[in-house]
């Protein structure tokens, strides 16, 4: 009987600790049903190309911070109608899919990064040429959490993390349109 009581006590402690860990993890998320950081589709539209070589077709996206801490991204200034900011993007092929053709590189990082913070629970609007999200493509956006306190390490062992948004994440009508583009 003593042994059984002891085992029950251990189980109780373990379950309590596990629940505490889970509770803490949940409390980091503002909306527990969504990822910590994610990009959502806002709208498609037409504006004069921002940079040479782009078409005027753009997607407006939102980068959400669903955590209780600030995020930081590299931004560049754009006219308001293009979004709150320009956000650096890198175009890569979606997992298991191939674009099959040459594609844009994205708004790549350079030797300068203007830091933009995104408050807990808020989002920033940005836009990219639709070609950056063509069939088989996705964009990845680098960011770092406030707790890393390190904004200069941007590769390999650095503390940057990425959030992805791909052609597959577009609404079906936009996905369908993108597949019909030359």
């Amino acid at each position, binding site marked *: 009987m003593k042994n059984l009581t002891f085992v029950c006590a251990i189980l109780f402690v373990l379950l309590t600790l596990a629940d505490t860990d889970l509770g803490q993890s949940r409390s980091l998320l503002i909306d527990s049903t969504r990822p910590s950081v994610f990009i959502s589709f806002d709208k498609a539209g037409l504006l*004069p190309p921002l940079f040479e070589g782009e078409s005027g077709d753009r997607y407006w996206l939102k980068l959400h911070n669903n955590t209780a801490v600030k995020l930081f991204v590299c931004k*560049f200034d754009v006219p308001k109608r293009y979004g709150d900011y320009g956000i650096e993007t890198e175009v890569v092929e979606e997992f298991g899919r191939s674009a099959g053709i040459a594609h844009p*590189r*994205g708004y790549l990082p350079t030797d300068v990064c203007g830091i933009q913070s995104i408050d807990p629970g808020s989002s920033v609007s940005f836009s990219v040429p639709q070609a950056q999200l063509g069939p088989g493509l996705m964009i990845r956006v680098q960011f770092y959490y406030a707790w890393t306190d390190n904004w200069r390490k941007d590769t390999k062992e650095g503390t940057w993390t990425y959030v992805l948004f791909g052609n597959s994440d577009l609404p079906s009508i936009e996905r369908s349109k993108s597949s019909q583009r030359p």
Partner: protein
Amino acid sequence: MTPISVLKFTDPTGLYEFDASLGGDSSDGSVDRETRNKRINFRKGLQRAKDNVAKLKTTKGEKSTAYQKAKAAVDAYGEEGDKGVTVGVVGDNQQKTPGHTTGTKGNLQVTFKDSFLSQANGLGENKDIPGEMQGLIIHEGYHAATNAAKGYQIEHDAYLVQALVLEAQNPFNSYLDINNGSERVYIWDRSWNAVDIDANRENTIKRILEVEYPELKPTSGVKKR
């Protein structure tokens, strides 16, 4: 040339400090030899840039755009020892470019790759380390002067001030390897004829931007905020 306002540039009397990677505010005697050497390299490179910017005042004119931009770039660092722009070093695998400027107005950080600041790999054709380093130091200084804003014209001007201090140090050649190292372009070549210098420099800068920063080229008619 179009006159510019120095008011466009912030922190004209800013003061740089070393961040923790370079020993913070510890004295040279309190940091290890390797860190001390990196500090010395940076100081010498910045001083060389300042000396050459002073020459530009005479050669280009105090009110010239060239001088004003170059001066803003070295002034962004200011003098050592107080809060302002921080200067640091990062591992070679932690930063894509040899120099990098990050932050926001009033809170800017310039970092250099370890191999650059320690000169472990050596640079260029010349063994004059400060002479070689000054170009990148002033390039990043220009980014600090423009608050880490990103854009075609800013990147153009960062290369411009880089080329100008090298020109002021004449005789001295300096090149950059671009296109994943497959193409070498001279940002300053002492064999250039005087009448061709501006055009040659501009062609080099345009080539660098075309190859390395194709996504930055703005279309006409879209004004940035």
